[in-house]
């Protein structure tokens, strides 16, 4: 199915959405860049996977779901948490292992959750959260709700049997699931070609399993928005599972804050090519070319607010206290 044929967004009518897309993308970037700055100080002491370069898709999704929809994600979950409305302060505090973190310091960067916003967690085990997302969709069906469940996964995660099994069940039961595959070409330092046949596309598997599918440039956030907007409407009206594959690229190392193009698993050229497709820059250029100066000026104002917000979140997190050591031994069971 070609999504773009089906709807055409009149962007002129939707400035709010434009600004919000920008806000979400820019805020994710700002948070991640602040982590880059802070991580070397060794106060954030947990494995941390940044989403710089991959902000477009979550920002697009943010426009078409509400807190009554669910989302679930992976080790690389910062962007998804924030896009889904997750509390910024609590996320940063969690990275610092503080008591006021979203998981009270017990989970760290790889275990973010904000139940109130329908962001139902992330997992440090590849593929582990996929069936959870299907289970969330099942709960919607059982409760007779019309919301949807969004499942973020990487190109590596689709190699897990849990992906295949989960998708089969979602299709079997026509559950309101949206599989969002961010294909960034790598799993850690392993390129696609040592893991998957080179002439195959991931979404074709999902299609054969029975999902409706689409493929989209994740760096083009307007395209991404239009695609996801249409698809979410379809799911809400009972289409059953959709699987959308987004082209994207992680700029920095798999885990940590550095660049690592020098170590040899990918080329500097490849990185530069993708960097030129920066979802934020592309979006801003588009606005500059198509909108009035007021619109563009507004972006700067948004930036200011974001920077302030982010600074404050880090300040608060640093100042916050660690959980009492005795808390290591509590909450093993729910009473």
């Amino acid at each position: 199915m070609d999504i773009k044929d089906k709807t055409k967004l009149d962007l002129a009518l939707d400035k709010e959405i434009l600004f919000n897309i920008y806000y979400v993308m820019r805020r994710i970037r700002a948070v991640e860049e602040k982590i880059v700055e802070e991580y070397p100080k060794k106060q954030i002491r947990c494995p941390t996977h940044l989403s710089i370069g991959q902000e477009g898709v979550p920002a697009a999704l943010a426009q078409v779901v509400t807190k009554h929809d669910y989302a679930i994600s992976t080790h690389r979950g910062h962007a998804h948490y924030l896009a889904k409305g997750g509390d910024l302060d609590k996320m940063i505090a969690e990275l610092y292992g503080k008591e006021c973190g979203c998981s009270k310091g017990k989970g760290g960067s790889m275990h973010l959750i904000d139940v109130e916003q329908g962001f139902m967690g992330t997992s440090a085990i590849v593929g582990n959260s996929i069936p959870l997302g299907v289970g969330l969709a099942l709960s919607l069906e059982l409760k007779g709700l019309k919301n949807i469940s969004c499942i973020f996964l990487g190109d590596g995660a689709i190699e897990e049997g849990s992906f295949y099994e989960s998708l089969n069940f979602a299709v079997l039961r026509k559950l309101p699931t949206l599989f969002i595959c961010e294909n960034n070409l790598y799993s850690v330092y392993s390129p696609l070609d040592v893991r998957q046949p080179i002439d195959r596309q991931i979404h074709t598997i999902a299609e054969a399993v029975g999902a409706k599918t689409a493929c989209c440039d994740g760096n083009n956030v307007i395209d991404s928005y239009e695609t996801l907007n249409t698809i979410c409407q379809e799911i809400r009206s009972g289409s059953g599972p959709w699987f959308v594959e987004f082209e994207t690229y992680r700029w920095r190392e798999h885990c940590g804050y550095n660049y690592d193009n020098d170590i040899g698993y990918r080329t500097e050229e490849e990185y530069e090519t993708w960097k030129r497709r920066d979802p934020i820059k592309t979006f801003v250029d588009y606005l500059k070319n198509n909108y009035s100066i007021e619109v563009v000026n507004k972006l700067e104002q948004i930036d200011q607010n974001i920077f302030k917000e982010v600074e404050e979140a880090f300040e608060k997190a640093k100042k916050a206290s660690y959980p009492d050591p005795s808390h290591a031994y509590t909450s093993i069971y729910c009473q």
Partner: protein
Amino acid sequence: MTKITFGKAINSAIDQAMALDKSVICYGLGATDPKGIFGTTLGLEKKYGKKRVFDMPTSENAMTGVGIGASMVGIKPVMTHQRLDFFLLALDQLVNGAAKMHYMFGGTVNIPITIRLILGRGWGQGPTHSQNLQAWFAHIPGLKVVMPSSPEDAKGLLISSIFDPNPVVFLEHRWLHNTVGEVPDNDFRIEIGTSKKLVDGNDITIVSMSYLTIEAQIAEKYLRKNGVSVDLIDLRSIKPIDMKAISESLKKTGKILVLDTGFTTCSVSSDIISRVLINNFEFLTHPPAQIAMPDVPEPTSFGLTKSFYKRAADIAKKVLDMMGIDSLDPFNDLPPPAPHDVPGDWFKGPF
């Protein structure tokens, strides 16, 4: 109170839980087929509908995760696997997921899933249809583990498991499904973590679980007749475990024999013995003893399983040895039933 089978008690527990609470669902391979998982799920689909009671693809791993995901938002799934062995495919979801989520998400979610695993035995079940891995589950923080041995306990503990806010692994021994006992008709609960004193005695403590409790009861009667007074404790729950009851008994008897349906090394019985000795060393008047399955995959052949499983006679023999009594021959007095590889006439194989 009605006299019903263990299998029927399970069925009744799920039935009443589903009637009480719309968020209880029930699924598993064969949950809606004509056999209804050894009768334990029969009638439920008709009563509660296709949405709440369903069969599933042979996808143990993801389907466990589906239940866990639904649990996060208040659904209370009862998932069943016809053999524990099949569930090895789903341990990532249970151990990296369900067991840890309440903790690792700082208490913001909890996972009220109940996973029924059936323990196979007899009629050549062989190496991969017979494993009793309760020790594995007990090793994992965040899980509760239940192993009832009577129809009444099965019902009371299953309802408690379903409404427990934590993941519970409910281990159901295939040889118990047709045992019969008085079971309350209404909804009733037995607290997970409480053992049951089956017989009060003074000479020796026997700690037992699941099907071995049946054998222990036969041994106890025989021993009683022969003047040995056994304090018989049925664990019922493996985690949390009722160490208090064990310690109290040991204080009285000074001798302990622990029975275990699982492999010997790193077992629940080893753990009980080690705990008792670390904490109650002074109570012991005799080295502790253990009867568990050998560290051997279970063979299939009828010719190989005859003495493979420990029975009442083995238990009695061990106790008599510990008591220093050598005038009795329990192997003669308590002969194994023939054939040895079925729990009764009702069990016609192949499951």
